[in-house]
């Protein structure tokens, strides 16, 4: 939601109108930047402990790359922000319940990351698995997978003798 009238923004050839009171849909990175400048506020409700717990349940249930489920868009960024904000609030308000909530969230997030990383590493063993799971990865995971996959490819090329005709 735009909270202050401002000049139109031009990003990637597209114009974004910033008119007070209007709800606009923009990428997360842009939204956080505009929040910092005091131009907009994010109206989509932030991730809650319940949301992360639900995601944790389905991530932990996955056994193979085929069981991997898609995470919500911007999951890692949002979770990180929410946990940071909770920590700051807990310090300010000196509320142990908030600290406990932050601890739980962090624990779930670590376990989610561990589990998804294991599956990601499993998938590196076969190119078909990579193709299968790519559509269900977050941008961060996809970047990591590409990076690892390329590194492995280069490493293989260096280790293996060249094919002889």
């Amino acid at each position: 939601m735009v909270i202050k009238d401002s000049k139109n923004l031009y990003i990637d050839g597209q114009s974004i109108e910033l008119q007070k009171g209007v709800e606009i849909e923009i990428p997360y990175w842009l939204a956080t930047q505009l929040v910092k400048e005091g131009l907009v506020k994010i109206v989509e409700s932030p991730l809650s402990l319940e949301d992360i717990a639900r995601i944790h349940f389905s991530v932990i249930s996955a056994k193979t790359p085929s069981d991997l489920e898609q995470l919500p868009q911007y999951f890692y960024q949002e979770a990180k922000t929410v946990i940071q904000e909770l920590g700051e609030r807990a310090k300010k308000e000196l509320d142990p319940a908030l600290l406990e909530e932050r601890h739980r969230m962090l624990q779930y997030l670590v376990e989610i990351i561990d589990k998804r990383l294991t599956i990601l590493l499993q998938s590196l063993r076969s190119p078909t698995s990579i193709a299968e799971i790519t559509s269900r990865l977050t941008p961060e995971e996809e970047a990591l997978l590409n990076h690892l996959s390329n590194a492995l490819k280069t490493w293989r090329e260096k280790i293996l003798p060249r094919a002889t005709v």
Partner: protein
Amino acid sequence: MQSIPGLAEEAVIDARERFHEFLRSFRDRNGNYKYRERIRQMITMGQKSLIVEYNDLYIFDTKLARLLIERPDEVLRQASEALREFIESEAPEYAEGIDRFYVRVRALPKTIPLRRLRSEYIGKLVMLEGILVRATPIKEKITKAVFMHCTREQGCHEFEWPPEGELVGEILEKPPACPVCGSSSGTFRLIPEKSKLIDWQRIVLQERPEEIPPGQLPRSIEVVLQDELVDSARPGDRVTIVGVVRVRPDTAKKRAVYDLYIDAIHLEVSQKLLEEVIITREDEERIKALARDPWIHKKIVASIAPAIYGHWDIKEAIALALFGGVPKITPDGTRIRGDIHVLIVGDPGTAKSQLLQYVARIAPRGIYTTGKGATAAGLTAAVIRDKSTGEYYLEAGALVLADGGVAAIDEIDKMRDEDRVAIHEAMEQQTVSIAKAGIVARLNARTTVIAAGNPKFGRYLTNRTLADNINLPVTILSRFDLIFILKDKPNPEEDRRVARHILEVHKDTERVKPEIEPELLKKYISYARRYVRPRLSQEAIQLIEDFYVQMRRMSLESSDGAIPITLRQLEALVRLAEAHARMALRDEVTVEDAEAAVRLMKAFLESAGLDIESGKIDIDIIMTGKPRSKQEKFTRIMEIIEQLESESEEGCARLKEIQRRALSEGIESNIVDEAIRTMRRDGIIYEKSIGCYAIVR
């Protein structure tokens, strides 16, 4: 589902204590002790079950929550004990009077599709969604049996079976030996009156129609409901069930093959209509953008079966039926339906079935069926007997399964006789009542009917009325808001256009790309039905009122008294106008909407309600099967018979005499013959002697 490494035995032993702790200390977001409050409420209301949100337990103790999924029997037993302990400390007198407390877990994070329920889930807790299609009457099941053991030496004594801590399973087995005297000889007699019994009911859960992959049969599973869960849902309801997957032999014979069934611990009836169509924020944006298009009505109509050439009025009627009017409930409880029923009667090969199939595809909660129906329940509902168990079941038919959606019924004229009776109620009152074999129920059938039928004589005969042309009673015909007739008449120009369209489609299928993608249209319709409730504007009311009064006035002015419109059509006009407003996601019914409704109604009346004798629109053709002009002739013939009967010495009217006198008044002999045939069939007159008729008094 994965078994959890690291969940040691101690976790199982701990479950009771952890659950007790959960009930005692869990606090929600607002800091309230959620379950302490729920338990207090439970005690006040005299209930035996505590409903626990799975996610709450997961946040409180992830291991315990996962253990609940893996070993539900053990954990639920201990949870129930923990609950009893808790209640005993809060209200000891209340706890004393209750045999068993239940912990009912709801909203698991994952739903297992019925199709993917396999052996790996046996003994585990799952959540399933589907439609309840069958239900047995409520029965009583023994949980603790009391046996009387009698021997010559020891006499008789009673004991409870199975021993402390166990309950009777699927089959009640006689004890191998008497736990009191230790003897296995003598007689064991069950005393049902002293045994503990609980309410028991078996239901069948079926996949939702929209989840069934194309060309496959729907899968179903039996679910056992006990105690407070019995009778909490009716056939046709969309339910979410949480329960434990169990097995039992598939036949009475001892084979190593077993059937899966669910032992339910929680059942929830879905309240919201059409919630299964997921509309994301992006979809909502696209829907709102579409609604802003001034040509939205035309675009929607053009998107209905674009491969079929022409039939604009029919497509528009179908589009309006898909959106539907607004159902209303008056303060006195009267329900006014919002569903628009449409009937298409047409010659073979006029693309009726194709239109219907397309409707079922784009309608949220759409079902395509034929009049005969695929199951024993047919279109409405039936009480059927299960061959293997001999139990009576109430099974829901197509109109009940499509509750809240659209039923596309092909060949409606060929429906079963039982359905012919029940469909009257289903179409107007939107419920299906059944009372058979001890099962008395009223099921919801808030369904829009879009039906097609073939003419009785193979082709539509233009010199006969609509009621003569289709094998449907006028009582059913009159319940349709719009009826269209598709005649296959040769017309060189039109034929060339149709042929060219079809050939072009064969050449390049891309040509029939719909204006709005079917998937988006489905979401659009679903969004409109869920969120848009248009109200009539004063101008729209005026226009509809004027049209109604004007049409009725025509009846006064015409000599033969043909009635062009009745109150049923007035209500239909309101529904059509509301649906037209809904198409543009408008909250108000404007004059434009009312005009569109009037235009469509006129098209319907001119197509189906035309009196072939007088050439005037006459709604009696649909309402009574006879045009007003013919009805008046029938009345006159009746008077002639009465007159002749009183004049003659025999006390009856001779056919020749009736025909002669009728002809002198301009009524032809074939009409006289038809009138006599009808009056004899209806029991108004009888043949007193050969060729001589008298009135039944």
